[in-house]
């Protein structure tokens, strides 16, 4: 067949040959362009490509014949055959992005793809203030939603692509580093109630080591990665993995150093008028509701430590007084952290061999005392062309990450829900409490001392000094790939990828605090090992002059083993010694009651085949299918086959009228329909027996053990989900390549969700994994760029990214009226039929339907709470918009990124607390006056009961219905700004440096969330729930956000 095709081609070309033309194709620097396509314009079947020296020879009808010369990364050029002896191609506006790495290292021309790929190159990732590679992607790719869990250095990051399409499952994308899966998990050791600013494992990649990041968003792009890639794929090519064969480049050593300051970004503006008290009483309350203003000179009040329990510990304070005045306690509690990142990259090679190695070290000290993260990375990658047509490619990386933070459990008002939190009692510190200067530790026994007589809240500085969460990770990952080229058109690749890390989690807490007064020490050791074997055969051929064919077929085995071992000890003996033997009791269950020892093993096998047919250079059709077998389901249901088909059409190449258009320089339309499978969590199909050893000890000392029928109802018929997505897109460059457009419309339907259905415990079980309900996401992703000025000295670009996603869940079985997604059972994010996922659900004020739904006020003058819970808001934003502008003038360049997120509701405890406790300037109202809250009494008459100001804010907010904590989360933010200066090359001629540049940059420089109380300065970009599908829209006094500013220097030798 092949022979026939080539024969035909040969015959055909001999028939038309008349005259031979020889030429050379060069780039703008005079270097030869290898592999450029040279075709006869009016007979595109007649063509050739340039050789290693950029030369070509082609037979054409006459010397006047027009040739079209094109190559990836260059603008196509048309010349007469007579002028073709030396053709210079100009670089096109799209350079590197023209070629996209798809799966298993296969490179594809972007125009052949039937789906959207957002690529972020190293320029947008290097020398940035944040060491977390995902946070740097914020706003840079439409459709990609990235949410910090907090400003704690090293804390986790949430990523969702094209909305959340699962109710109970995981929505994090797959990370693929240098062609093999890379674990990006957040191995939280306890739920949010216990604090989970756990670091995410993609933090192990230094953004400075990244060559490029491609985000594959739709199923069309990700089916090749199988069901693992159904939530999108973040494809990272490291500099070690980017070395390409036969690179003949001089050795280059790059050294970079960055230093940034790290400050708390969102401190409230505290009232300097009122202090600690409640209504007419001044004293040691939680709240700041004194109705008498500060005086000058200040009142002298008995020192709160002058109390019976502390007289022995602080004899100097017996009878002492303190000034009842404003103290800037919270501001002084924080510090300015310093972030330093040093990197060295060495790149070089010889004939048939290329190598890259790098080392980097990051030290990021947080604005919260005792929070820091230190990361060292080492890596080496290489590529060698061996004899016998073998090519060996490999990259190996080693990372150590040490993350330390004071604990940050969630809090619903004061202290913490269940764990320990340094923030639980910090942000609302009454303004007359001199927190920073009053001692925090009892010198006698090390216990916490604070202003409350009952010692019922822990001094935040005590927590800083005595309580810690640590996460130490050692990780090795990499791949070895052997490729054999049977011929130019057929090759076979075997690739093994590995990712193995040990992660040590420590949570330690000295005795003597209000929470866990006896102290505890929890250690867990996590081991994750991923092995990924792939085999791939690729065949590509030119069927006719016009028709090209690429076929790939292969198989993949993915094995992911997770193990953890832990111990939880409590009742510390000797203060400030953390060793399990220094604790009276030891346990194998953690603070949240979870088993600390467990393992999960899963395997996924896949086989796939894909074919891509190209017609001329303007029509491409891709078809393929993958079949996966998962270890999670019973054998009858473990397999799923899922096909896909996409097409792309380039009118600017197909239509003559457009080919030379100055208005429409490039236009591509693409359409795809794809499917993917999802297998949910392991161990859902079989009944288990719960074991509770040492559950109770009788007064006589007898240990009682028990076993229970597990609460999860087994479902042996559970089957995989099949997601379906239709995607349509337009890419274009208009007006002399000044306008860049990339528009995608998509609709993804995920029917038959594998979801955890909660059961009425009266059924005997509490939950069951079932196939039910549909989640639909549809949206618009738009990237629009405009080059305002483009000349040799001055360039000015504006790029905008627009993301709009509409989400809806439907087809619920009749018995499912709601599904709790995150938070508490009576306040949290929920799914309801025919509503978007992530509705905020909680308590409402009782309303009188006969009086126009006015709120009902009780006889004490306070709102009554409706015993039935209701929907309080929708946490999904309306849309997100990013604007990036970059100027460059000669050697200077300036870049600025603004992010705007519109709409979406949020339950936020921090502003609720700040208002309820009267600590910010927002509450500087007349506090002597009595107030009547609007509403009707139980008889339906207008409320006339007068209450004090503290009751208006405290009783009718914090201890009233949850609806008072819901705000619109719209926020506008200056995410990044940077100014760079690259020393001109001619200045460096006599120096050892190849290049040198200096960059000043800042992150999170300014933001405004207009619907929150003005002086709260609340930043809605936070996620108390940690890393999960549903993190947006729910805040429980979590850590503040960070603002960074600094400079970077980079030198190459």
């Amino acid at each position, binding site marked *: 067949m092949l022979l026939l095709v080539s024969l035909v081609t040969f015959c055909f070309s001999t028939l038309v040959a008349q005259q031979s033309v020889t030429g050379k194709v060069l780039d703008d620097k005079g270097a030869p362009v290898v592999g450029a396509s040279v075709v006869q314009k009016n007979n595109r079947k007649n063509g050739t490509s340039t050789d290693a020296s950029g030369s070509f020879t082609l037979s054409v009808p006459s010397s006047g014949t027009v040739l079209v010369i094109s190559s990836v990364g260059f603008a196509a050029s048309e010349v007469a055959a007579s002028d073709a002896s030396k053709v210079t191609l100009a670089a096109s506006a799209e350079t590197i992005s023209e070629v996209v790495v798809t799966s298993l290292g296969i490179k594809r021309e972007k125009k052949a793809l039937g789906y959207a790929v957002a690529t972020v190159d190293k320029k947008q990732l290097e020398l940035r203030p944040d060491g977390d590679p995902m946070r740097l992607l914020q706003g840079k790719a439409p459709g990609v939603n990235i949410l910090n869990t907090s400003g704690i250095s090293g804390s986790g990051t949430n990523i969702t692509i094209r909305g959340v399409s699962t109710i109970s499952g995981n929505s994090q994308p797959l990370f693929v580093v240098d062609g093999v899966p890379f674990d990006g998990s957040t191995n939280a050791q306890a739920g949010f109630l216990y604090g989970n600013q756990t670091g995410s494992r993609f933090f192990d990649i230094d953004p400075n080591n990244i060559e490029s990041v491609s985000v594959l968003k739709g199923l069309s792009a990700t089916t090749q990665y199988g069901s693992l890639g159904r939530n999108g794929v973040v494809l990272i090519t490291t500099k070690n993995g980017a070395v390409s064969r036969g690179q003949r480049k001089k050795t280059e050593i790059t050294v970079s150093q960055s230093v940034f300051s790290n400050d708390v970004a969102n401190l409230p503006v505290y009232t300097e008028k009122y202090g600690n008290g409640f209504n007419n*009483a001044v*004293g040691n*309350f939680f709240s700041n509701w004194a109705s008498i203003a500060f005086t000058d000179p200040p009142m002298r009040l008995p020192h709160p430590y002058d109390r*019976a329990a502390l007289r022995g510990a602080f004899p100097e304070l017996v009878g002492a007084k303190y000034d009842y005045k404003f103290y800037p306690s919270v501001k002084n509690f924080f510090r300015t952290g310093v972030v330093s990142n040093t990197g060295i990259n060495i790149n070089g090679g010889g004939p048939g061999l290329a190598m890259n190695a790098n080392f980097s070290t990051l030290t990021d000290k947080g604005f919260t005392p005792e929070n820091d993260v230190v990361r060292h990375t080492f890596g080496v990658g290489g590529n060698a062309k061996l004899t016998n047509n073998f090519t060996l490619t490999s990259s190996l990386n080693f990372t150590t990450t040490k993350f330390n933070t004071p604990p940050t459990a969630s809090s619903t008002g004061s202290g913490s829900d269940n764990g320990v939190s340094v923030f639980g009692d910090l942000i609302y510190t009454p303004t007359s409490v001199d927190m920073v200067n009053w001692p925090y530790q009892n010198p006698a026994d090390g216990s916490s001392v604070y202003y409350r007589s*009952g*010692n*019922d809240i822990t001094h935040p500085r005590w927590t800083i000094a005595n309580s810690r969460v640590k996460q130490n990770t050692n990780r090795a990952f990499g791949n070895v790939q052997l490729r054999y080229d049977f011929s130019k058109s057929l090759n076979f690749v075997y690739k093994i990828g590995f990712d193995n890390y040990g992660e040590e989690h420590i949570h330690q807490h000295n005795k003597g*605090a*209000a929470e866990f*007064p*006896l102290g505890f020490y929890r250690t867990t050791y996590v081991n994750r090992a991923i092995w990924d*074997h792939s*085999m791939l055969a690729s065949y590509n051929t030119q069927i006719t002059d016009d028709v090209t064919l690429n076929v790939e077929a292969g*198989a993949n*085995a993915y094995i992911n083993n997770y193990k953890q071992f832990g111990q939880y000890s409590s009742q510390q003996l000797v203060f400030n010694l953390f060793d399990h033997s220094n604790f009276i009791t*030891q*346990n194998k269950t953690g603070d949240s009651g979870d088993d600390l020892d467990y*393992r999960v093993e899963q*395997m996924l*096998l896949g086989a796939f085949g894909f074919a891509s047919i190209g017609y001329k250079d303007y029509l491409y059709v891709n078809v393929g299918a993958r079949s996966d077998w*998962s*270890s*999670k389901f019973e*054998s009858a249901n*473990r397999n799923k086959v899922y096909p896909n088909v996409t097409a792309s059409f380039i009118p600017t190449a197909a239509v003559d009228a457009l080919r030379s258009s100055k208005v429409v320089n490039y236009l591509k339309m693409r359409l795809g329909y794809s499917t993917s499978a999802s297998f949910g969590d*392991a*161990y859902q199909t*079989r009944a*288990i*027996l719960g*074991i509770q050893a040492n559950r*109770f*000890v009788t*007064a006589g*000392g007898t240990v*009682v*053990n*028990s*076993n229970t*029928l597990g609460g999860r*109802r087994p479902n042996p018929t559970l089957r995989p989900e099949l997601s379906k997505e239709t995607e349509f897109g337009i890419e274009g460059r208009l007006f002399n390549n000044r306008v860049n457009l990339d528009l995608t419309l998509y609709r993804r339907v995920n029917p038959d969700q594998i979801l955890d259905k909660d059961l*009425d*415990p*009266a*059924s*005997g*079980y*509490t939950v069951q994994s079932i196939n039910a309900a549909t989640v639909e996401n549809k949206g618009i992703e738009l990237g629009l760029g405009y080059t305002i000025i483009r000349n040799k000295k001055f360039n000015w670009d504006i790029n905008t990214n627009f993301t709009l996603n509409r989400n809806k869940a439907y087809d619920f079985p009749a*018995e499912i*009226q709601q599904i709790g997604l995150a938070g508490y059972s*009576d306040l949290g994010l929920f799914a309801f039929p025919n509503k978007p996922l992530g509705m905020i659900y909680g308590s409402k004020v*009782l309303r009188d339907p006969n009086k126009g739904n006015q709120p009902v006020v*009780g*006889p*004490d003058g306070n709102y009554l709470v409706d*015993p*039935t819970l209701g929907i309080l808001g929708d946490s999904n934003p309306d849309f997100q918009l990013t604007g990036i502008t970059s100027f460059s003038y000669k050697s200077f360049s300036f870049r600025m990124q603004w992010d705007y997120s519109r709409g979406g509701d949020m339950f936020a405890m921090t502003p609720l607390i700040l208002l309820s406790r009267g600590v910010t300037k927002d509450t500087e109202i007349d506090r002597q006056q009595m107030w009547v809250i609007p509403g009707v009494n*139980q008889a339906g008459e207008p409320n006339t009961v007068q209450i004090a100001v503290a009751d208006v804010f405290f*009783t009718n907010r914090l*201890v009233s219905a949850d609806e008072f904590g819901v705000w619109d989360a719209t926020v506008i933010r200056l995410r990044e700004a940077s100014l760079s200066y690259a020393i001109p090359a001619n200045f460096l001629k006599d120096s050892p440096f190849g290049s040198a540049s200096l960059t000043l940059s800042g992150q999170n420089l300014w933001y405004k969330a207009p619907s929150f109380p003005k002086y709260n300065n609340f930043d809605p970009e936070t996620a108390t729930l940690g890393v999960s599908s549903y993190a947006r829209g729910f805040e429980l006094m979590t850590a503040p956000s960070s603002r960074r500013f600094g400079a970077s220097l980079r030198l190459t030798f």
Partner: protein
Amino acid sequence: MYKNKLILVAVAASLLTLSSCKKRLDDMLANPNVPTLDKADTDLYLNAAQLSFASFFNSLSDRGMEMSRLWNMGGSIYLNAFRPETFNGVWGNAYRNVVTQINAMEPLARAQNRFFHLGIGQVMKAYTGMALVDFFGDVPWSEAGNPANSVINPKIDKGQDVYANCLGLLDSALVNFAKNAASSPSSDLYYGGNKTRWITLAKTLKLKAYMTTRLVDASAGSKIAAVVAAGDIIDTEAEDFVFRFGTQLENPNSRHPKYNSCYRASGGVGTYIANYIAWEMVTEKGMIDPRTRYYFRRQITARNGQTSSGQFIIPLPALSCQGQLSPGHYPIGMVYCMTGDGYFGRDHGDPSGIPPDGQHRTAWGIYPAGGDFDALAINTGSASSVQASIVTLNGTPGARGAGIHPIWLSSYTNFLLAEAQLALGGSAATARTLLDAGVRQSITKVLNFPATMTVTPNPNFVPSTAAINQYVNVVLGAYDAASTNTAKLNVVMKEYHIASFGNGIEPYNNYRRTGLPLNMQPMLNPLPGPFIRSVWYPTDHVTLNLNARQKADNTVKVFWDNGSATCF
């Protein structure tokens, strides 16, 4: 050739790998962290049910104590006092952890001839079912908690049907107890493996059921008479049905829940007692109830919260109602704000926030919580005294938490039989004897309690026999002075109320059945809405069970409540 061989090797290797991998998929289906169901053990199932039964009793009892003024209830109107979610825990515990585990045990116990296990399971199930009906009304029962053939949406059964089924379970239990069991339970946390006691309990629970449903059962009198005639009911302290806690602080915390909330290392006492019960015992009779120092452990004493010079002894923020007049709707003499002598609790339905008063609140004492005996001298009026703070790092005061859940006591039987005499056409004189016995048994139980935990109370504050007799005489005097049977019953029910401290299920039932004691402390809010005749169905039931429907409000009566009793 070389290339072809290479292809062959590659294809063969792929196929081999794939087929061996597919075999491994099967091995990975079972959860490696837990055993499979066939490893279940009858004893361990029974242990699970026994422990969950105790915590089921605790959570339901707490709500009952709150409604019947044995413990403080917040929420300014009855409609708001509890939310449906409040009952998720107790519901889950009842069905998942008690009923389902007992049902899961049953086939094993039968197969192994462990009839003693089976009987205990049936008794606990019967108690659970009736208590669920007492609080919620109609509940899932016939289709509930069946692991063998589980029904996702169990239907709701009528309360009377559940009661009938539970009485049947008690009869089956008696049959099983009579059989020769292959073995006794490895741990019997209630009666230490004494089968005779379980038999006595099963019979007593039938008596309790007949009495509870007497308003809607014309034959209640004869049924009760038959049980009494047959004898073998809980009428001595040795037969009391209690769950006894341990003293272990952690891993696992095995102490009484009230001990855990009161004897904390920081923050002080975590909950409030109800002013009403303190007032009943300290003030109402003009004498101190002999049980007072066992029930309550004060942290301060101050007569009416004031020193002799009229200074507030409790700092104002801790007790902002000090010095204020009683609300207009309170009857004359009714306690308001604080019972004298430092019994620091809260009024019924006080919705206020939590001021810094952890060092002042009165804690649960040694009975039934296993706490500290109150050895604080009575304030003479000259100055305040402060007892050592109960805040102790190691949580060791008193009986170190080895308290009990008084699920059924012999004193309850006596009060209940006294009610039968008065309400079902018996003899007032017999009722008087029963009342006498009930009060004395309760006092004996409480006063003997420290010794069972080898705690010796300060002898200066242990009531003398004369004091006990004096108390009993005051009670009997009031009984004799009461002219009608209802008034006499009011005396009985007040003593029952006091005696049931630690058990909220009985006084809540009693209140709805008799409307007694008559002088319950009103809600602080003058317009609190109607009393809670049954509690909300939990959210977990209403939102997850297709057959469930939330009640319109909390005036819905359970089947045995004919509305004859006035409750507020």
